[in-house]
C-alpha cells in the first residue's frame, strides 16, 4: 500500500520547501494538495523578494567618525624609549 502523508505542510515545512530543504516524502504532498502548493508558492515568492532586498551602506566617512570616538587602548608590553 502506498503511504502518503495526508497532513498539510506546517509553516516550518513550507519554509524548508521554499529554501529547497524539505524532504522528498513531505515535498510529495505538494503534488496532491493544491492548497499547500498555493501557500508554498506565495511563501517562496516572498522569501525571494526579501532575499533580494538592497543592502544599504552608511556614508563614506562613517568609519572615520566611529574611530574618532573610540578609545584605542595602548598595546600591552610596548617598549618605552
Amino acid at each position: 500500500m502506498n503511504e502518503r502523508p495526508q497532513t498539510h505542510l506546517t509553516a516550518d515545512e513550507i519554509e524548508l520547501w521554499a529554501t529547497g530543504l524539505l524532504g522528498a516524502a513531505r515535498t510529495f504532498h505538494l503534488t496532491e494538495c493544491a492548497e499547500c502548493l498555493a501557500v508554498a508558492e506565495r511563501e517562496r515568492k516572498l522569501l525571494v523578494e526579501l532575499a533580494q532586498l538592497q543592502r544599504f551602506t552608511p556614508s563614506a566617512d562613517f568609519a572615520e567618525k566611529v574611530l574618532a570616538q573610540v578609545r584605542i587602548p595602548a598595546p600591552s608590553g610596548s617598549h618605552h624609549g
Partner: protein
Amino acid sequence: MFSLIYRMVRDRALAEDLAQETFIKVLNAIKTYKPEYKFSSWIFKIANNAAIDHLRRRQIDTLSLDGSPSARSPEEMHASAPQLGDQAESPLDEVESRELGGAIEQAIARLRPEYRSCILLRHVEGHSYEEIARMLDLPLGTVKTYIHRARNELRGYLEGARE
C-alpha cells in the same frame, strides 16, 4: 548591520547615528565579548537593541504608517496615514523615499518592531532561528511565531497593494 538599523528606523541620518553608537559600544566593550557567542550575532544584538530602544523612546511604531489608531475603516486609516511626498522633501528624504519606497519595504515598515527585527534577521541577514532567539533574548518558539506571523502579514500587505 546598517541595513537592519535603517530598515528599523527608516531614517538614514538616524540610522548612521545608531550604527555609530553600536560600533562604539562594541569596540569599547570588546573585552566583555564571550567567544561562545558568534561575533556577528553580538554586533547584531547591540544594533537591534539600539534601534528598538530608539523606537520605544520615540514611540515610532507601525501605527505611524497605518494611519490613526482611531480610524474605523480601511478608508479612514488610509486617509489619516502619512503619504510619501506630502511635504517638500529634503535631498535626504528623497534618498529615503527612493531606497525605502518600494512595496516590500513599505510592507516591512508596517510590521510591529519585534516582527520587523525577526523577519529582517532571518530572511534578509540570514541568521538561524536559534541565533535570533539568543540575540533577542526570546524563547525559540516566540521567534518562530513572530516570523510566521510577520510573513503572513507581509503577504497580506503585498497582495493588498497589488490588487
